[in-house]
């Protein structure tokens, strides 16, 4: 079980969180014309990297904040966690 540092609450066990997928995906702006390809990339297409990955987690059974977690998908090492609106270093 992972040990995740919520930037709002501190170190918490993984079972307080829920996973939210790739944090680098950006939703196309509302009312903006997008091609099928662009939209498919947003909705469906994801890379599955081995190694460093920036991902979303929600501190569901805690402060309910969505946070960003920089994690190694192979070793599970967590390098850093960020608040939703924080600049990614």
């Amino acid at each position, binding site marked *: 079980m992972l*040990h995740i540092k919520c930037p709002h609450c501190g170190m918490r066990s993984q079972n307080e969180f829920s996973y939210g997928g790739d944090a680098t995906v950006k939703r196309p702006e509302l*009312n903006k014309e997008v091609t099928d390809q662009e939209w498919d990339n947003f909705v469906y297409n994801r890379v599955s990297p081995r190694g460093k990955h920036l991902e979303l987690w929600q501190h569901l059974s805690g402060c309910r904040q*969505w946070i960003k977690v920089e994690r190694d998908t192979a070793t*599970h090492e967590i390098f850093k966690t960020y608040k*939703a609106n924080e600049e990614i270093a």
Partner: protein
Amino acid sequence: MTQSYRIETGGLINRNKKISFKFNGTSYFGYEGDTLASALLANGVHLVGRSFKYHRPRGFFGAGVDEPYAVVQLYRNGETEPNIKATEQELFEGLEASSVNCWPSVNFDIGAINNFLKIFLPAGFYYKTFMWPKSFWYKIYEPFIRKAAGLGVASTKHDKERYEHKYEYCDLLIAGSGPSGLASAYSAAKNGAKVILAEDKPRYGGSLLTSDVNIGNQSGKDWADGIISELKEMPNVTVKNRSQVFGYYDHNMLVMSEKVSDHLPKTKKYHPNKRLWYIRAKEVLISSGSIERPIVFGNNDTPGVMLSSAAKEYLKVYGVLVGKKPLVFTNNDSGYETAIEFKKHGIEPIVLDSRSNPQSEIIDEAKNLGINIKNSYVVVAAQGYKKVKSADVATISEDKKTLGNIENIVCDCICVSGFWTPTIHLASQSGNKTKFNEEIDAFVPGVSKQNETTLGAANGVFTLEETLKTSFEKGKELSKKITEKDNEISIPNVVEKKYSKHDKFWCVPLPKGKSYKRFLDFQNDVAVSDVEIALREGYRSIEHVKRYTTLGMATDQGKTSNLNGLQLVSEIENKVVPSVGHTTFRPPYTPISIGAIVGREVGKHSKPTRKSPIHNWHEEHNAVFVDAGVWLRPRYYKRGNETLFEASKREAKNVRTNVGVCDVTTLGKIDVKGPDAAEFLNRVYTNAWLKLPVGKARYGVMLREDGIVMDDGTTTRISENHYHMTTTTAQAANVLSHLEYYLQLVWPELNVNVVSTTEQWAGAAIAGPKSRDLLQKLFPKTDVSNEGLPFMGYVEGDLFGVKARIFRISFSGELAYEVNVESDNGRFMWEKIIEIGEEFQIQPYGTEALSTLRIEMGHVAGSELDGRTIPYDNALEGLLSKKKDFIGKRSLQRAAFVAEDRQRIVGVVPLDKKTSIPEGSHLVKDANAPLPNKKLGHISASCWSVEYDNPFSLAILKDGKNMIGEKLFVMSPLKNKVIPVEIVSSHYVDPKGERVRS
């Protein structure tokens, strides 16, 4: 029966307390402090089971967690548990156990015929023998294997025992209380670190319990006792026996199973049977010791052949002789310790040492005691079927390839020592890439992956002096990093005997013309010949060899077999062991009760049970409840001998003719507040929200980004910046998370807050033609006329002094209202509604009537919004705004979503107007078409229409729009039904929706 193999004095058992127990129906005695294994051996019982594949007789091989054979079925306090190691099970008064793998009995076993049909079960037997003919598998092979194999029988009864989970944090977790565990725990504890010391056995001390050493001025055991009692007194230390750390997981989390009650005849009141500890440790010290490995020879699985260290443990800890004419077969000095122990108790052992001229202190001691030692000698094969009767022995050449003449030595046990294998499981589970140590012919931990350090024998260090020194230092160093304290500890003097070099020899060659089975894996019956077959058939990767032969795949995880298997593969392949590599060590280290893993989350405890504040009233009025997610909801209110069908029909009918009331407290409720709330709703819902006035409600549908309908519900504008959103009971939590996602991550510029208010409000739906009359009596001061409170209107009212919210919304298709009050006033509201409703013939209705009402109106719910349908499929396309963007809108342009023959909701009526249609059935064109019959759609929900008094269903049907009036067939292979049906509109009742507006 007398304990004829128990020595007069000695051992750590309590001879003042005799304990009676039964094994395979025979009564025996042992002492407090015995294991089932030591007590049986004290009684001269060596035959405990039959082997997995060949059903050969099985005895005891070890004395602890490494035991591959002595797995029994245990009976305790009216319960039974399979897969219990007799070597670990402590004796208690009234214990009963029986052998497994034996049918009909351990002494006469029909499966043993396999032993004479060896051809039947060679390596890969699962994959080859039983593949052909295919039809034989179910009828012949599987039943035969099921009957003949397996490690006991799981109970089918409800487990009365209780199991607990516990979460713990500590600075240092130390796994194993041998010398390295004690020393490191001691210095860390003295430095003020929070320490957990775990020992899987009942007694602390590990190897110090059986080795002949001195620490300070005391025996090793006395020193261990002293350290333990000091540690137990310290407030920063938790010392746990009977506790196995069995798994090392990510981020330094380890799991430990504590056997709280297994050593007692019965679990004490309020105590758990087992406790599972989830421990997050800053540092982990692995002091799990080592396991002696066998030397492979002919018939080395005969009862009476066992590890030399186990024989010593039975003698020193339990005062039990495993034999009276022992033969010790060794390639190192350990075997001499066992021989000396026998000699001290007046037994004359013979030592066969594979080495030609070993010299050491301990060998000198053995010689001085007059022990018969034969150098360059090996055991070729054990003789005897159910018990060792003698051994064929021979000299062996220096290159270990040629045997001399076979001689026979009479003996009743063979104690074998092939040197020591460090227990590296936890380190390997942590991710440590282990390395091969040529010195000891075994793998040891390499570079640490997580914060783990392996000490002592587990790290391949076999001298006590070095073990203690490094362990004291490591404990101090690691704790200092955490507590920043630096307590000086003096390392005690050690007196121990020096060992000479062991012999790199692990397998005795077969003598000419003999084909003895030489076993590598004793639990899974994998012999040298099986591995040879696997390699001959082209298997190279050790992981493949493992799976093909099942080597190391038994419940003991090959604790005694893995290394010898690797030696064999490397020898045949002409490779060195490290390049063969070992298979992956996976948790659990040893079998763990399923009950302990499940913990308290069983039955009603597997999820919370939520009840509405009106629950007690429902109970008092004969409600029959149904699980709705985590909620308990009334399904119907039973009158007399009514069936579910009769009651729900009555309740639904009463809504259509008079008025009904339904507890809708369970609906998800979310407060949406803030100056940008309208804009937010406008993006979340598919329809327009910017112009909704205060005091009005609107029905809305929300999509996922992929265009699939996520949820529906009404949202009401309570005041300028305050909206009250409702969700379905099932989706409440997901919808809240979904809203938070967009507010926090996608549109943080919107000034909106969302919070769940599900628990804050109790809700009652009042539905039926007489609902307005009732409402007026409930709220005499409020104008509830069609003009004062029109369809989708909202007002606040005063319910006899209680503040209430009144929504004019309908799920039943009738004129209907929903009244909300604060939860605490829920029952008050309900009773008022029932009391005043009496003159309008009010009846409460449950979820079954609720479903009937919504189905015949064609209202979609969870069974249609099933995560696979888009708005069009549910006839909700009228709610899609063309003017604005919203979540998921772009996906609705996908080709499949705009296809002409897209699936769509329809109504289904059986042609005979009588036959009920099972939910989940398929719709097909031709009931007699050859299989696979093309499925056109499925029945999503079924009811008995109270309006028309015949069955009615909703279905999601391919090209549903153009199918109205078609005749199809409903097929339910599950219920074996074929029903001719007609497709009709999904709006079966009041298709124009006039009633809700009346």
